[in-house]
């Protein structure tokens, strides 16, 4: 039987605020000694009270706007009750029935098909502490407790593990683009959980779902959901029933395992947080935030295609992050040729960045410096292959292209007389290629051009060299150039 896979995601996103959700403690706990970013509020000490972090609310609204959500005029916080040592108050301050934003969407493109995935809600809550288990003992580090956490819930609109992976990846691109989160999955700044079920093709009713946790990379999202879908199908094919449960992805074993335990069978007993007044968002405030929203990746890709004639692929690559797109557009502004700049940025520049494991934010070649290099190519001062060498040098030393070309004497040789002498020597030294050429293999001239380039350490203008070679070969053959 054919089965359809149904997936909905719940993504937890740590926000890039300076201070925690309900107190003034710093959020820079990464690498800090345990329990050094704590105060009575985030430790849940008796008598302490929460105060809402305004920036976190703004970031959530901005995220909602970026995901085409409706922004609530009236939102509130609720208490979600459960006991666990990582939860200092015995309840988490979250949002239940009146979240900050709801009903949006995000497009994903898989195999050339664009699909609109519904966003059920984006709400704000607080992160929990971190437990470490050492044999008989468990340790709790409250540095993470109270860090602003945004929860993004999708509709069950995804139909394959690949769609889920692309959605998560697109979501991360947006979160980074609007500057609300690092989206770093390995560091836990973006945590993707999935609800997944399967049903026979054509059946309207959803199958019983399981919740999959502990997927720490986009690749893990895809692999875990592929595994889980097949597991569910196998169970059904053997006449079994799916148990609604939480399962964890075990990366090393490549499978999901049940994490079900009765302590987690919760009735969270949500009720309105009496320590916090409801949030009233004026339309003025929302419009102020909307005005701050940058041009989003899809719109920017569309514009790059229309304005610079880029392919959809190139536009996608160049809008991989806002910094890349900004770099690209700054270089185009300094140079003028959108397509040429696109080729250099997505080709050579990305190759160098990968080699140095750098992000574009840290690139040592400014967009203006790249434009200068390309102008040297445009006006024939250097050829493409020299330009690639010069870019490497710029990347390594931070020098400008002109300086490198001058210092190393890399100016392209287009001088007819100078090249004629070199070409004659090459013809003399390569009788086999000459014979091939004359025997009816015009492509042999390419080999000879290569030899000229080599002899001139890449400085020869290959077009001019090719012309001269053909001229010389045809002259001594007694034939007119064709």
């Amino acid at each position, binding site marked *: 039987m054919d089965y359809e896979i149904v997936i909905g995601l719940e993504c937890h996103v740590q926000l890039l605020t300076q201070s925690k959700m309900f107190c003034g403690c710093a959020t820079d706990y990464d690498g800090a000694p345990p329990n050094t970013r704590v105060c009575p509020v985030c430790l849940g*000490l*008796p008598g*302490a009270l929460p105060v809402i972090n305004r920036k976190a609310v703004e970031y959530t609204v901005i995220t909602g706007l970026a995901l085409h959500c409706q922004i609530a005029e009236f939102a509130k916080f609720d208490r979600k009750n459960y*006991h666990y040592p990582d939860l200092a*108050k015995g309840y988490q301050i979250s949002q239940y029935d009146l979240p900050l934003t709801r009903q949006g969407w995000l497009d994903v493109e898989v195999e050339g098909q664009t699909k609109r995935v519904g966003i059920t809600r984006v709400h704000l809550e607080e992160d929990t502490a971190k437990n470490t288990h050492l044999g008989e003992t468990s340790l709790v580090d409250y540095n993470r407790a109270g860090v602003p956490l945004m929860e993004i819930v999708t509709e069950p609109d995804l139909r394959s593990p690949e769609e889920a992976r692309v959605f998560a990846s697109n979501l991360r691109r947006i979160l980074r683009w609007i500057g609300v989160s690092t989206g770093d999955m390995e560091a836990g700044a973006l945590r993707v959980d999935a609800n997944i079920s399967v049903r026979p093709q054509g059946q309207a009713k959803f199958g019983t779902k399981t919740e999959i946790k502990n997927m720490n990379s986009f690749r893990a999202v895809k692999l875990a959901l592929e595994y889980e879908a097949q597991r569910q199908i196998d169970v059904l094919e053997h006449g079994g029933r799916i148990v609604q449960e939480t399962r964890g992805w075990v990366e090393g074993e490549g499978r999901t395992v049940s994490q079900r335990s009765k302590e987690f069978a919760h009735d969270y*007993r949500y009720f309105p947080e009496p320590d916090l*007044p409801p949030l009233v968002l004026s339309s003025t405030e929302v419009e102020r935030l909307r005005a701050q929203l940058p041009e989003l990746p899809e719109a920017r890709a569309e514009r790059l295609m229309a304005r610079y004639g880029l392919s959809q692929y190139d536009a996608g690559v160049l809008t991989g992050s806002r910094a890349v797109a900004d770099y690209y557009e700054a270089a185009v502004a300094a140079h003028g040729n959108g397509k040429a700049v696109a080729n250099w940025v997505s080709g050579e520049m990305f190759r160098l960045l990968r080699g140095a494991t750098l992000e574009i934010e840290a690139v040592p070649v400014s967009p203006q410096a790249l434009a200068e290099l390309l102008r040297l190519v445009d006006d024939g001062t250097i050829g493409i292959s020299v330009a690639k060498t010069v870019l490497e040098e710029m990347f390594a030393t931070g020098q400008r292209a002109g300086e490198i070309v001058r210092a190393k004497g890399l100016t392209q040789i287009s001088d007819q007389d100078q090249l004629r002498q070199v070409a004659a020597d090459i013809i003399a030294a390569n009788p086999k290629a000459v014979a091939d050429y004359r025997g009816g293999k015009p492509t042999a001239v390419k080999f000879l051009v290569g030899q000229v380039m080599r002899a001139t350490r890449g400085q020869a203008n290959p077009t001019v060299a090719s012309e001269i070679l053909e001229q010389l070969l045809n002259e001594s053959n007694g034939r007119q150039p064709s």
Partner: protein
Amino acid sequence: MELHALTIHAARAALQSGDLTSVTLTESLLNRIYAVDNQIRAYLSVTPEVALEQAEEADRRRAAGDTSPLLGIPFALKDVICTEGLTTTCGSRILHNYIPPYDATAYRRLREAGAILLGKTNMDEFAMGSSTENSAFFTTRNPWDLERVPGGSSGGSAAAVAADEAIFGIGTDTGGSIRQPAALVGIVGLRPTYGRVSRFGLVAYGSSLDQIGPLTKDVTDAALVLGALAGHDPLDSTSLPTPVPNYETALRSDIRGLRVAVPKEYFVEGMEPGVERAVRDAIQVLAGLGAEVGEVSLPHTEYALPTYYIIAPAEASANLARYDGVRYGHSAANPSDIWDLFRTTRDEGFGAEVKRRIMLGTYALSAGYYDAYYRKAQQTRTLIKRDFDQVFTHYDVVVCPTSPSVAFPIGARVDNPLQMYLADIFTLSLNLAGLCGMSIPCGFSEGLPVGLQFMGPPLGEPALLRAAYAYEQATPWHTMKASLPLDVTSSELNETDEAEIG
């Protein structure tokens, strides 16, 4: 008059004139505590070193020209308000060893105003109760009759003030816990409007109902302490930004034209005749002073008790979830796993009434019951508030009894929670509606004090103080004090039962 018997305003005059130092006054209070507290048992902890150090500092401040309103005045703080470095137990075994690392805003404000901390007072565990009998440690005695309760939950602070073991006391009021003990020991208790005083550092019971307020020997003192406590606190998002008025200017004996409402639902069958008589007489006094007295109806009054006993326990069930033995306080020995640690810590650490309310609240919030209980209670709460809104469009204050009975014997109600809950029948509505109110002495029944309750609209404290002050100035009740058996040393009395005065 003995120094320990002074009011704030009398002590302040003596301190300002240079006739008295704060150290002398504080020593007098400490000696009084040593003399009588083994009978009263108002204090859970007395902190003489802290008190004397603060008193010396106050004398230095005064010498330097400081005229802060409570400078050098010793007081008693309910043990539910956090004090940095000083044990704060909430009357509970689960926090018997808990020392907060920070000061509550209310305590900080009192210290800034110059007040001197004598110690932390007994209370019903986590402020759940009306007699101090739910304290995990001991029961405080009513100075008027040591076999009777002082009321609760702020019974320790109330008894300390009534027995002159503090110039003033600080209590908290979630359903009547300032006003009811004030009534039962014959002093003044003021519960401010919700949000008027910061709750930061007040260990939460019912977060939407809790409020800190003064327990004092007279109305003037209540105005002085309220002025020091009140004000916006950025650390408490429910605290009100409204500027604090000068409450002393409200203390005028002329109440001609003040519109006073008498709600008929507050004179019910079952209330003690002596209480009703004293309150009716008090209303006559108000009318005689020129107040315009009219009878009104607060029709949803009968739902206040069940509404309160859904909402307060629901909030408490979450507020008390943090006491799990992981970070501080009592922690069960040798638990088999984390769930056993939670269970055993809480089983050993909480008393019966606290457990009862946690269960009530948990049940009311549970899936399938939320709509029938918690949501319904919130709707009823709105109706109760509307009753008052209606009345306050035509009246300045509401007047009624504080408690349906005088102080009851220790042990009389401990086996009957519902009977105990009825002690707060006249005080709960105000908390649900977010109003302000106070109780002042209005006479005696069977030799025990009776309290008169004033209720005002949100931020209506000046009207309350005005009505209460005028009544107080026209009557002798606030000057009457219980005679304690141990007073024999100072008063030369030989009788052991000197409670009957009035």
